[in-house]
């Protein structure tokens, strides 16, 4: 069994009076693609936010590479998001004022990389995701599928250890969704990046090595960490 990269234990989180997580526990192995499924309002997105250090749980622990994310100061969490984590949402995470290339280069710019070097690296990633030639366009000028591939390039440009994707194909048609998922899984496999995939779409979940279901704020069946072999659609992509 693999060593967990990220471990969450008994996470509890409420938004005002509404409970979102009620003791959710989960492990994500290095290089694993894990799908978290569940009905609307089951707490999937909140779980992702807690695991990525975007929000702090009310109680429970999140451990990453020996560090307790729930105890880390905001500055260190920001650094982790810049270097070790990538985040992709359904839409809206790209900055409308920046071009596609600058959006991808943003984490590198924030880390102090020179603009020329950051843009060159962004260009390479845009090429990998098949959106080369769109560098100068702003998010509003891109199609939904293109914008999502730019968002993926931005999430992966720093060679993160884990990518958190919240319904990455939720706003796309089936063809664009398939292209985005193939690109994500293929790149993650190549670079050994773990992917935590939030989805309610069985076809998207099929790309994962493992699937867990969230019900009423708890993980219904956490399952065991994979021994290392990819399965189903993910295996096809890796081939």
């Amino acid at each position: 069994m693999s060593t967990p990269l990220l471990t969450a234990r008994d996470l509890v989180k409420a938004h005002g009076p509404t409970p979102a997580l009620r003791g959710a526990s989960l492990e994500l192995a290095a290089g694993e693609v894990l799908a978290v499924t569940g009905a609307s309002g089951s707490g999937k997105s909140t779980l992702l936010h807690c695991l990525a250090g975007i929000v702090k749980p009310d109680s429970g622990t999140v451990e990453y590479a020996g560090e307790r994310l729930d105890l880390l100061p905001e500055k260190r969490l920001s650094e982790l998001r810049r270097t070790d984590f990538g985040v992709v949402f359904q839409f809206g995470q790209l900055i409308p004022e920046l071009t596609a290339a600058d959006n991808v280069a943003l984490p590198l710019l924030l880390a102090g990389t020179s603009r020329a070097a950051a843009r060159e690296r962004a260009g390479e990633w845009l090429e990998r995701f098949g959106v080369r030639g769109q560098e100068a366009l702003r998010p509003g000028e891109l199609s939904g599928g293109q914008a999502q591939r730019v968002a993926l390039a931005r999430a992966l440009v720093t060679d993160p250890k884990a990518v958190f994707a919240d319904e990455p194909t939720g706003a796309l048609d089936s063809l664009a969704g398939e292209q985005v998922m193939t690109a994500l899984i293929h790149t993650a496999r190549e670079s050994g990046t773990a992917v935590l995939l939030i989805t309610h779409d069985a076809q998207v979940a099929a790309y994962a090595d493992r699937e867990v279901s969230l019900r009423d704020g708890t993980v219904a069946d956490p399952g065991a960490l994979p021994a290392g072999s990819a399965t189903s659609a993910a295996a096809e992509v890796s081939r």
Partner: protein
Amino acid sequence: MRTDLRLALLLTRGSDRREGWRVTLTAVGAALATALCLATVAVASLQGQYHSALAAGLLEQPGERAGVVLTLLLLLVPVLGFLGQCARIGAVHRDRRLAGLRLAGASPAQVRRIAALEAGLACLIGSAVATIVCTPVLLRQWQNPPVTVWADCAGVALAVPVVGALVSTLALRRVVASPLGLVRRVRPSGGRPGPGLAVLTTALVMLLTGLAIAPRSFGGFQTAPVPVFTVVILTGLGAVWAVGASARPTGRLLAGRTGNPATLIAAERLRDDPWAGARTHAAVLLVTVVGTGFVGVRQVLLDDLTGRDADSFPTNLSFYTTGIDLTGAAILLALAITLSGLAVGTAESLATRRRGLAAQAAAGVPQAVLGRALLLETALPLAPAVALAGAGGLGIGVWYGQLAGGGTVPVLPVVVPVAVYAACLLAAATSLPLLRRSVRPAELRHQ
């Protein structure tokens, strides 16, 4: 810092027309604030008897100059309110952008610096323009200005952008706190009055205690500006607090009882964001206190002047009336500035909510109902606040009448809050054409 500056410039270069408006209006507001501060510094630095052709001799004696300084400082209030409204243009859009930066790994300090640089640069442009224009004017009017005044002027030119940047940073504290920005907004539980009430109560108690313990030094003619300024600020803050504090109970009460769709929409909006009115009307309420108080003081002064024997005046009557008229003109200017700010704020609020409004229109809510709801959103919380602001101003007039010893009770000031209330409704109505555009179904496509 270089990285932050580079990102701030990249973001500014890629921003849309609305962002351009924000930068322009912020620069205009900063220029006005700088000009007023420079004039205050210049007048305050004059020593003893001074001859000037400006303002009908109002700058000649130290006593009158203190009044001019006070007026200039009071004029700063609506200008700062206007600056606050300008900062709100495109606020939701900007909040999302900065939250996006946090999501990409920017630390809270980095986001604060980028936001401060964006606002500070706009204020710096305005401040620089005002300084360049005002300096030759001051030089032409001034005989042998002391060296320290130039240092003060330089301080003002630098302080305005710094203050603008600090205010912007403060306004963005919620975005800085979370990479999700305002996406998941939790409605406050309500019920608690918040720290504003405690601060106001303490300040009022301190003022009343001061008046009770030392009525001569606290309530005399010589120190009149101190209690007047305190009452203006406290009543203004109280009125602003009243808008927010009364909005939620008013909304709850109306939402439970009304059968009118427009009232229901307005009531639910008041419950959802009770402090929206307070943010939009803060400067107007402060001007209402100042305006009502001024009209009261003016009536007392004019009654006193016209009631006296002409031989008892050492100078021409116009010396006094010019000062009063200039102050009145300044307050009218302040009202115009705040009403412009109010129109900007209402239009901005509509632009921010255009998707929700379009959804309501698409669901069959008539445009007339939405228009009435919009006006009610302004009218309902503003009524008690304007009444309170007017009462505060009236109090100043009555108190001044007692100080003057003439026993005059000014009644004219009562007109001011009524006129301001009507003007506010008119300013809100100017955004109705924008409402017509906002409720187009095409707006549903915007994020």
